[in-house]
């Protein structure tokens, strides 16, 4: 990125006159740093136009508000770097929230339980098989590796089944939901990936189909309970299942209560302390999930071979294939990750609004794509950074926050947001820089 900054600045630096060097510095900022400048401008504007903007409470609200879009955007960044797209994330979020609500509240084998648990069991098996083969069998591709894979699949699937199936009668615990639902999302995303790679279809059309089918499935499953499409987490006495409020409001004491049955006393004590309260006050649990997914995404892109392969495939798929990269497997994995993250966002959304419904997350895919693109990731693939996505998500979040702090209606907010997207991407593409360069040439 600093290379790029140098590249853009160099022609102007060559003819460095006193005013020219100032301009060069300005255009350098406008070039590569414009992302951060944009965020800073929005942040400063927020401080100026509203007293409440800078308060810890408001900052926490922003982080909470962006976390679902943020989690989707993390997966979307990985997908877009491979020159793909995942349009299904919004509807997948809705399906995830529906499944989460029904698993938590309905104490019987509903359609949601059948669907989510069977998908999760298969996904758990696949994940264990892949991990086991990577760890034990390495590069071998023979009977041993096949045996290891089969055994790991059976063990993984069985463990998850043994843990979760007995819980169905009493409603799944929040921890089980946090594992089962994202795992089933992993499987659904993987299905998109398999269709894209094995049938050689465009990601746009496959994920568009997945988007429609996920919505249909969510409605079918939601209607199956007979109580309409919306599944509330409240029971007849107005209470929600244990742990839901923690996922939503970040009360460390609630978490301590939730885990004290099996966690060491020291940990529950720590969670009950005032310090923990302060930390969780600033970073709400959904925000924590977002930041952790972001950190994992960052780690994947910068440190893992898998991350490097994403860039290579997005940059030139044929070269990647000829260099011995298993392109199909990498692409399947990236759609699986995106599916998993959308279902995770679905669980958080369910806790946030204390209900699950198929309509949740409609059009969320577009917000996620916008955040990724504002963050400088190229829709053509091969280029992009996770930090950019963080900034893109924050620009979105702060903007909405400021507009609503000023009391502007949602309609106005949407209108302005649309314009900001265009401006932000123009800045990203070095529009200002080109403009100043042209004027300089005219002089």
């Amino acid at each position, binding site marked *: 990125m600093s*290379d790029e900054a*140098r*590249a853009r600045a*160099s*022609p102007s630096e*060559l003819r460095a006159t006193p005013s020219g060097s100032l301009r060069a510095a300005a255009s350098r900022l406008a070039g590569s740093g414009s992302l951060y400048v944009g965020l800073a401008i929005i942040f400063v504007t927020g401080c100026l136009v509203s007293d409440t903007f800078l308060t810890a409470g408001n900052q926490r609200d922003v982080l909470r508000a962006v976390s679902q879009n943020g989690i989707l955007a993390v997966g979307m960044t990985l997908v877009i770097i491979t020159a793909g797209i995942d349009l299904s994330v919004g509807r997948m979020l809705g399906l995830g929230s529906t499944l989460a609500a029904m698993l938590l509240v309905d104490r019987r084998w509903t359609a949601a339980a059948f669907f989510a648990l069977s998908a999760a069991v298969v996904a758990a098996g696949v994940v264990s098989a892949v991990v086991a083969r990577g760890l034990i069998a390495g*590069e071998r591709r023979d009977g041993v590796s096949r045996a290891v894979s089969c055994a790991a699949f059976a063990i993984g699937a069985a463990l998850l089944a043994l843990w979760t199936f007995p819980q169905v009668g009493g409603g799944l615990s929040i921890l089980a939901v946090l594992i089962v639902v994202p795992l089933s999302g992993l499987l659904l995303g993987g299905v998109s990936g398999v269709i894209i790679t094995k049938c050689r279809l465009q990601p746009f059309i496959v994920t568009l189909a997945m988007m429609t089918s996920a919505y249909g499935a969510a409605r079918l499953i939601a209607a199956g309970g007979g109580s309409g499409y919306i599944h509330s987490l409240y029971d007849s006495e107005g209470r929600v299942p244990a742990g839901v409020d923690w996922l939503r409001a970040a009360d460390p004491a609630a978490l301590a209560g939730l885990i004290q049955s099996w966690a060491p006393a020291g940990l529950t004590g720590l969670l009950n302390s005032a310090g923990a309260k302060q930390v969780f006050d600033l970073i709400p649990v959904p925000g924590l999930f977002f930041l952790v997914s972001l950190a994992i995404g960052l780690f994947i892109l910068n*440190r*893992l*071979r898998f991350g*490097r*392969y994403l*860039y*290579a495939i997005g*940059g*030139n798929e*044929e*070269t*990647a*294939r*000829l*260099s*011995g*990269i*298993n392109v199909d497997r990498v692409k399947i994995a990236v759609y699986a990750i995106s599916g998993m993250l959308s279902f995770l966002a679905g669980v958080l959304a369910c806790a946030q609004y204390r209900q699950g419904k198929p309509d949740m997350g409609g059009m969320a895919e577009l917000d996620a794509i916008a955040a990724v693109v504002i963050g400088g990731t190229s829709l053509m693939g*091969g*280029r992009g950074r996770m930090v950019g996505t963080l900034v893109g998500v924050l620009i979105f979040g702060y903007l909405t926050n400021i507009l609503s702090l000023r009391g502007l209606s949602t309609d106005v907010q949407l209108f302005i947001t649309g314009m900001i997207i265009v401006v932000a991407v123009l800045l990203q593409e070095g529009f200002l820089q080109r403009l100043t*360069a042209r004027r300089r*040439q005219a002089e």
Partner: protein
Amino acid sequence: MTETAPSGTTQAILEARHVTKTFPGVVALRDVSFAVVPGEVHAVVGENGAGKSTLMKVLSGVHADFEGEILLDGRAVRFEGPRQAQQAGIGIVHQELNLVRDLTVAENVFLGREPLTRLRTIDRRTMNAQTRDLFERLAIKVAPDRRVGDLRIGEQQMVEIAKALSLDARVLILDEPTSALSDRETATLFSLIRRLKEQGVGVVYISHRMEEVFEVSDRITVLRDGEYVGTLPTPQATRDELIRMMVGRTLKSFFAEDERTTPGDEVILSVENLSLAGAVEGRRTLIRDVSFDVRAGEIVGLAGLLGSGRTEVLEAIFGVHGDRVRGRVCIDGRPVAIRSPRDAIKHGMALVTEDRKATGLVAQMTVRENLSLPSLRRLVRFGMVDGGAERRLADDFIGQLSIRTPSREQTVSNLSGGNQQKVILGKWLAIRPRILLLDEPTRGIDVGAKAEIYHLLRELSLRRVAIVMASSELPELLELCHRIVVMREGRAAALFTREEATQEKILHAAAPGGKETADVR
């Protein structure tokens, strides 16, 4: 140096004066001057990275920000983009073909300025008729309504040239026009160039092939490291002098050393009855029953005309065509199942492909990332990419192959063609291959880099790597290879040892209609 135009004091059509162009970390051109007069063929030669392509891009408006000036008919102009240059009568045919494969020939020629009917729809009849007229004038025999993707490379090249000329170009820039052409197609191109000359068009001709430059040009300008070295009238120039000007020292011959390596006895790679069934996209050539052996340290050449199946043989061995390949590939005498490039790499094979941009490099990645791509699995520590080991590997190969780049973090597309080729070689040498497959490894690169690559191949041969090399340049095959397999229409038509092989014999065996040789082993 004297600047003698062939027609005395004729006013130059297009002139560059004191042009300097910089890229991040590189000065591509430094104070270069250059002129073309009507009716001359002005050749520009120089090593990779000498600035030839950059100069042409400045002249044709692709690079708009540079220092110095451009004069058109003696008046200073500044092109804001290629379109303006085109309208001013400057046509350019880039090294890489820029045609839309799914459009017809006529649609490509008229792309962006289609003739319209009264209803504002495209007037196909006029378009085809005008294209036919244009082609007749240039003696090009291609039907205007054919799909460009179905044409042979040589025909596509002709379409590109016709397209550049269709705007009444007064200057035509040809950047390495013959690198993909057969000898016959090259001859057609040359007669076309001579016809243009008679019509008063100024032709700028960039090539690495000395013979062509001597054959076709009137004046030769030499660039070195982005600087102007000199201009000679072709009749007064000698090959040795040009090479001295290009490299700044005297090279005894293209093939610097003559020590011959002797291959071992054990067969490393054995190909038996290799066939490729089913059409490959855009190419109709298949291969049938190709068999040959490669011993340790042996360099086997694949000769043949364009489209004779050379590339397909290499691709079939390397698993590019997956399950569509029939026949057996044995390594160390044992049959191996290679269904993908990944399998091939696991068996110690590497394939340097013909097309750097499409299959060799990831253009937006850095030199380091490209070099480590196939060997990344060996650079992993605790599941993570070992940054230090990766940087060492990159520096190693940048040094070993003397890749000219400001840093290992330079984006690879900013490098010159020859240096990009070295990056591709480096990335494959990094997996320490036992079998190295090369497809046109010296296509479009300069003498200096060629010599370095020849030297490298000899060294690999000494290290007992089995090498298969496809090339359309017979002199290099004759010089380097221990044995040469001649391909004709998808079959192995003949096999010559180094001692038997001559240019005539190979050409004879490669020409369609010759008699078959059953077993070439």
